[in-house]
């Protein structure tokens, strides 16, 4: 927990620093008609950096010694987020509905160890139902790929 606290506080301070630099570029003082663009971000970043510094010290004195994440916990978490990122990447090429079906199917097979029949059925159902609801009923267009254009959409 401590290490994670230190790293987070440090990253936030660094980000705050970047904001400070850009705020200075924009001007933090009084312009012709009121405070300039950098005024608000400058003070926000400054408060954030100072508070993070205090948190840094606080962690040193009384940071929790618990483990931030154990190996057993990290596994399932990565199994959700990495395939989700793969789905997002895939969406660029084959559209959202196909990517969603592949993501759902592979997750069910890989993590849930469901039978192939239910994997295919559920993956197709999720794609088709969300297509019907969003694309046809509510007219909210999603990214589409070759499969949808082959079907005429």
């Amino acid at each position, binding site marked *: *927990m401590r290490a994670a*606290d230190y790293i987070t506080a440090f990253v936030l301070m660094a980000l705050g620093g970047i904001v400070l630099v850009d705020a200075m570029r924009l001007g933090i003082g009084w312009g012709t008609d009121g405070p300039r663009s950098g005024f608000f971000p400058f003070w926000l970043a400054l408060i954030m950096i100072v508070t993070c510094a205090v948190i840094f010290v606080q962690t040193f004195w009384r940071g929790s010694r618990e483990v931030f994440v154990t190996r057993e916990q990290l596994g399932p978490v990565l199994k959700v987020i990495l395939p989700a990122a793969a789905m997002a990447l895939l969406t660029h090429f084959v559209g959202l509905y196909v990517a969603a079906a592949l993501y759902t199917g592979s997750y069910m097979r890989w993590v*849930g160890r469901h039978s192939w029949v239910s994997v295919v059925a559920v993956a197709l159902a999720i794609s088709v139902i969300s297509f019907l609801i969003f694309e046809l009923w*509510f007219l909210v267009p999603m990214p589409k790929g070759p499969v949808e254009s082959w079907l005429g959409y």
Partner: protein
Amino acid sequence: MGLENLFLGFQQALTYQNLFYATVGIMLGTIIGVLPGLGGANGVAILLPLTLRMPPTSAIILLTSIYWGALFGGAITSVLFNIPGEPWSVATTFDGYPLARQGKSGQALTGAFTSSFVGALFATVLITLFAPLLADVALRFGPPEIFAIQFLTFSAFVGLGGGNPLKTVVSIMIGFILATVGLDIVTGQLRMTFGITGLMQGFDFIIAVIGLFGIGEIMLSVEEGLTFKGVQSKMNLRVVLDTWQILPRYWRTFVRSCLIGFWMGFKPGGATPASFMSYSFAKRFSKNPQQFGKGELEGVVAPETAAHAAGVAAILPMITLGIPGSPTAAVMLGGLIIWGLQPGPLLFTEKPDFVWGLIASMYTGNVLGVLIVLAFVPFFAAILRIPFAMLTPLIVVLCAIGSYAVHNSMLDIWYMLIFGAVGYVFKKLDYPLAPLVLALVLGDMAENALRQSLIMSQGSLTIFVDRPIAGVITAVALLFFLMPIIGPWWRRLRGLPIAAPTPREI
């Protein structure tokens, strides 16, 4: 004057179309409330794009009904599965689950739903009475008062939100900074974009809500390894009627919890502390406090009444001041802007049919809600028996669809994933997410109010103290900010034990 307006509202809320939307909303909302990882805030956020083509009144009725449904849904999982679907139903598990284990799940659920209904109805009546008055006052607010109110909102998170107050401050700052990214509409300059095209559109808070609350929550729940071991629900009309005969005995608890809930709820970050506070008060004033935690119906009544009163009360500042009291209210506020309405006191004069339709729908929605959940408990409980390897990807896919639909932009799906990872880390490290989202929503408004105030005062900060209304609000806000420092000191002075750390709101 209030009554005919309310009557006008009921004419809106009672059309077939709007009753249909309310029913759909309650059903969806309850499902959302039951599912882990899909809370009220991101449930509403995902469905927001669907409302773009609806009339605003129907749209807000759909979204608020989802919110009521989510409030009800949390109680089902708490009682039957000992899993709080929402943070404010944690206190409901204390006595709800033991009751269910004793075979009295029907009694516990009826008690929970009825209490929710009473709490919500109480808060709705108060909103009906006070909203127009508050809006009248708010109409006279200038930029300094608006900024002072914002200051108060965030000070409430720091002073009353629980957890580490410093981390609350950091979360607020992150939200405000994210809000400044992109085009500065006042000067026309690009800020914090560093020449990266992707940053020019800025960060949309809906994406942040879906990522932080949706993806982040999923990551947290798979980490614990999801297994649902539930108790069968035994619901029938007899149980409901029998419980209704017992409930009037707890009228004192009802009244107390309603007041606690409303008082905590219209300030930000209220529902969760309200439910805990109400539970501990009920225990303290009970004739048999030793029964609490072992299956006392009063221990279900107290937190549920307060949580619903607080949840409904969070709507009050949203419609009167344009400042949301909870992340879900923040998403609805975002909805108002998307539908082309200006949130705030002007709504009451310019769009009375919308505001009063919304208020009337709070009555109809909660009546419909309590009937629907009582009737369909077994159906909602069955949702948790869906294997989690099916639910998890389904929720992720829904989050992705919701994020993309906001701007039709692939980049938003990536932002959603990043926000998800950030939400996961922040939640584990006790950085609160609700103030971050609220700061992101209110960022532009706060900055404009600050700028205009400073222009009025030629750059002097004393404008926030000199004007009477702004001065009082600022003073209260400063008091809240100092609470984490004064609180322990005051307790030591009076020889009281150090307070137990309060849990975070969401």
